[in-house]
């Protein structure tokens, strides 16, 4: 229950941190909030030889919003995201998802980038970022590249990050006009790992027809169900429509069984949450349309 020995590095700039990543590669782990990494180290499930602490890299901690996007520095604390009035106003889906992460004591230290790079299947932010079509800026010593959230999450706890790369920034574009959103999840107790989750974004035209739809579910990795999204376009929101969409979205959804829930339960819960998320997003979108016409 105590971590194995490691060499500790505390860079103060992105360049310095990326230099260390290039030097130590897969022998090193970056340390952000440590809310997932340190438990794994305490259990000795992992024993990195080098720990590269990003907490002193001040240039990685920021929230900047302009007309084009919300830019989130990778080591921004989850609690900052949750507390930001700008995020609450323009990216409420992100705020709602963040409030489900662990507990306040975890969110005070846990970072946005840390949760995304860890890519735990039941984590909130990966699902939210995929639903929001976010893009990730990945940096190595000599390169920078941008990867869409959907392409960033590859499989169970596996991302597109190379051993010498760090997640530097997440960019989230604004929702389309008159869009509604919803983030839903179920866990045994509030703050526990989610057993299932769903995020939806829907936008309606002036006549009440769906003209934009996004639905993302928790699975072994966040899953955007594009076929179902496309089938909603041009339709009018209804319980029947969304019930059917949720059923189709989860029919072949890959899920894990573990001590907390069976794969079957998770699929069923995902379907119920998908339906609720679509309903709530449609309601919010309808309210937004009404507000615009008034």
């Amino acid at each position, binding site marked *: 229950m105590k971590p194995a020995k490691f060499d*500790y590095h505390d860079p103060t700039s992105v360049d310095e941190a990326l230099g260390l990543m290039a030097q130590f590669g897969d022998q090193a782990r970056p340390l952000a909030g440590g*809310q997932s990494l340190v438990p794994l180290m305490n259990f000795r499930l992992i024993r990195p030889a080098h720990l590269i602490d990003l907490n002193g890299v001040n240039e990685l901690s920021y929230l900047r919003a302009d007309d084009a996007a919300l830019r989130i520095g990778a080591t921004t604390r989850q609690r900052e995201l949750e507390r930001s009035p700008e995020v609450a106003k323009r990216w409420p889906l992100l705020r709602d998802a963040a409030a489900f992460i662990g*507990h*306040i004591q975890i969110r005070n230290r846990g970072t946005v980038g840390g949760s995304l790079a860890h890519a735990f299947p039941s984590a909130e932010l990966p699902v939210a970022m995929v639903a929001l079509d976010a893009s990730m800026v990945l940096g190595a010593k000599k390169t920078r590249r941008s990867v869409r959230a959907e392409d960033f999450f590859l499989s169970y706890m596996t991302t597109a990050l190379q051993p010498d790369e760090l997640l530097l920034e997440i960019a989230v574009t604004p929702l389309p006009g008159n869009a509604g959103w919803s983030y839903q999840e179920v866990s045994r107790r509030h703050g526990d790992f989610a057993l299932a989750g769903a995020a939806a974004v829907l936008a309606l035209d002036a006549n009440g027809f769906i003209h934009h739809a996004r639905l993302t579910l928790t699975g072994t990795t966040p899953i955007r169900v594009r076929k179902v999204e496309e089938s909603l376009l041009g339709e009018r929101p209804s319980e029947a429509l969304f019930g059917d969409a949720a059923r189709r979205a989860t029919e072949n959804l890959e899920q894990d069984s573990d001590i907390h829930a069976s794969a079957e339960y998770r699929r069923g819960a995902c379907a119920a949450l998908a339906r609720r998320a679509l309903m709530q997003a449609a309601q919010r979108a309808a309210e937004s349309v009404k507000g615009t016409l008034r």
Partner: protein
Amino acid sequence: MSTRQVRLRINGREYSGAVEPRKLLTDFLRDDLGLTGTHVGCEHGVCGACTILWNGEPVRSCLLFAVQMNGADLKTVEGIAPNATELHPLQEKFWELHGLQCGFCTPGILLTAEALLKEIPNPSEVEIREWLSGNLCRCTGYQNIVTAIQEAANAVNSAKS
């Protein structure tokens, strides 16, 4: 064994020590500095017994390395009473209303509650339970803890007005 020197502020007092990088903050507080009020429960961030305040915010001290705390400003349960003979209103109400039984989880809960009352001086029961969700208590069933926090809030607010 390579060690690094850390200097930090705890409960308004300067401390320093040489630590191996893998030393958890909880162990540094207890074993090196003798601040044994911070309790060690699960050591993987679940139980909340080791909760301390880091720059005023409640965090798990078992998920921090002492070496990361160079220059930090911390508060532990030893620092919440105003002086050696008086209790903090939270401590007073926990004592009066049986907000603890075995007391193992109490230090973490007191620090979470102190941060809660700073952020929300008059919290609702829902808010109290939301904040407390990160601190496990296996004795009390939480009811008396919730009541004690509500009463402490009332005591602090009426003393102010």
